[in-house]
């Protein structure tokens, strides 16, 4: 369960807000909830490692929006999403809650699976374009006789 939840929360976090909002609006899921924490815009400090494997250092910050909701059934959903869209954070938290309830199948099919496909398509496109720029070296054999 934790692995699955990590996976959908991660997907929601990095999804494009327009993609998420479109999918959500198309589905018209009627659900009522209350705020545990209103959407809040902030940042996290991204860290790297010196020389790839060494000690940590700070690179710079990334904007993040977070919020928490509670459904009428008591299920709690959280979100930490990239960017400054409060609506994206809200829908992500509601999806996180719903995915823990009986409605998980519906949300999975209509929101999560399409978002996964968008992510995969985007990545495959990058990888296939990068592959086309791979250098094929050919060595000219030089005669050693002279």
């Amino acid at each position, binding site marked *: 369960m934790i692995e699955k939840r990590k996976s959908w929360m*991660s997907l929601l*976090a990095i999804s494009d807000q327009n993609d998420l909002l479109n999918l959500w609006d198309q589905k018209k899921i009627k659900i009522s909830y209350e705020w545990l924490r209103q959407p*809040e815009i902030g940042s*996290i400090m991204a860290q790297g490692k010196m020389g790839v*494997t060494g000690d*940590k*250092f700070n690179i710079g910050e990334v904007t993040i929006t977070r919020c928490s909701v509670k459904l009428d059934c008591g299920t709690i959903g959280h979100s930490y999403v*990239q*960017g400054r869209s409060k609506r994206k954070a809200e829908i992500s938290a509601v999806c996180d809650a719903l995915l823990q309830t009986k409605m998980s199948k519906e949300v999975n099919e209509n929101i999560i699976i399409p978002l996964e496909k968008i992510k995969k398509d985007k990545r495959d496109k990058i990888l296939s374009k990068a592959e086309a*720029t791979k250098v094929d070296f050919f060595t000219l054999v030089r005669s050693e006789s002279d």
Partner: protein
Amino acid sequence: MYVAVKGGEKAIDNAHSWMSEIRRGDPSVPNVSLNQITEQLTLGVDRVMSEGSLYDKDLAALAIKQSRGDLIEAIFLLRAYRTTLKRFSYSKPIDTANMLCLRRISATFKDIPGGQKLGPTFDYTHRLLDFKLLAENETPLSPTQQFENKKVPHVLSFLNQEDLMQKEKDNNLDPIDITREPISFPTSRAARLQALSRGDEGFLLGLAYSTQRGYARNHAFVGELRIGIVEIELNIPELGFDINVAEIILTECETVNQFQGSKIEPPQFTRGYGLVFGQTERKALAMALIDRALRWKELGEDYSGAPAQDEEFVISHCDNIQATGFLEHIKLPHYVDFQSELELIRKIRADAKRNVKRL
């Protein structure tokens, strides 16, 4: 005599109003949209994010538009906004071995696992103006090719295996954060790397070039340069586990430099390291050269007095917001300061004249 000066509000308001009008330009020309900036002036956006030290494309685009394309002004706007944000937390360190590479090249080895991928680069173009861009034609899609989705290992890890490359050890230390604590000298490599990563590209470029011209002996090879997408992991305290919260583009550069060895270490190669937000390879490369030059003390090398070896000089002057703030403030009214200078010089001259008479 002290004179308090007030006024100028109307002049300032009117100046700003004219600036806004000029920023908009000819109203018959369509207004530039933020999407156009993020999609078509990508590298400008990346520079503003890296030196503004905040990864947010929309805000960077807004800053570029607001600043009429003055990137240092845009960086200033983003830095100022950054200070208003609540800091939630620090991420887990990003593992760049998991990078989805758009570009990955090595100038030290020809045949590398994963191959040399040029990516969307200006290299090997002829740097001739392309008049075809004057016509607003559709750009044809670039070719694609079948690929294997495998992790791309770092080129220098192969030298690590032979112990020819100095190992970068993780001692699990928490780095200082220069946005929270002022830098004091001598400083740590972590503080230097943070300052360099958001430092001014032009300043770093000039300094890095100076090392190549002989001011600090460090002849660098580009062991690897990679640009691509990485995910950022964050521990969520409410849940007690980690999730990915963001996806960003990073440019990473590792240079290979010779090292003579010391009393305790055999001769081996050492690394200069650059890691920067966005597609910013000139900056990442310069950062790696300067990182290596600044490591002279740790590696027991001679201090040749070169600017790039002087961490206080480099780190105190690489931040373009500090620099421009101090530089540009001198154009603001200094009437009172100058009046005291004026009175002083009049007095000295009068005294000197009196002394001459006396002689």
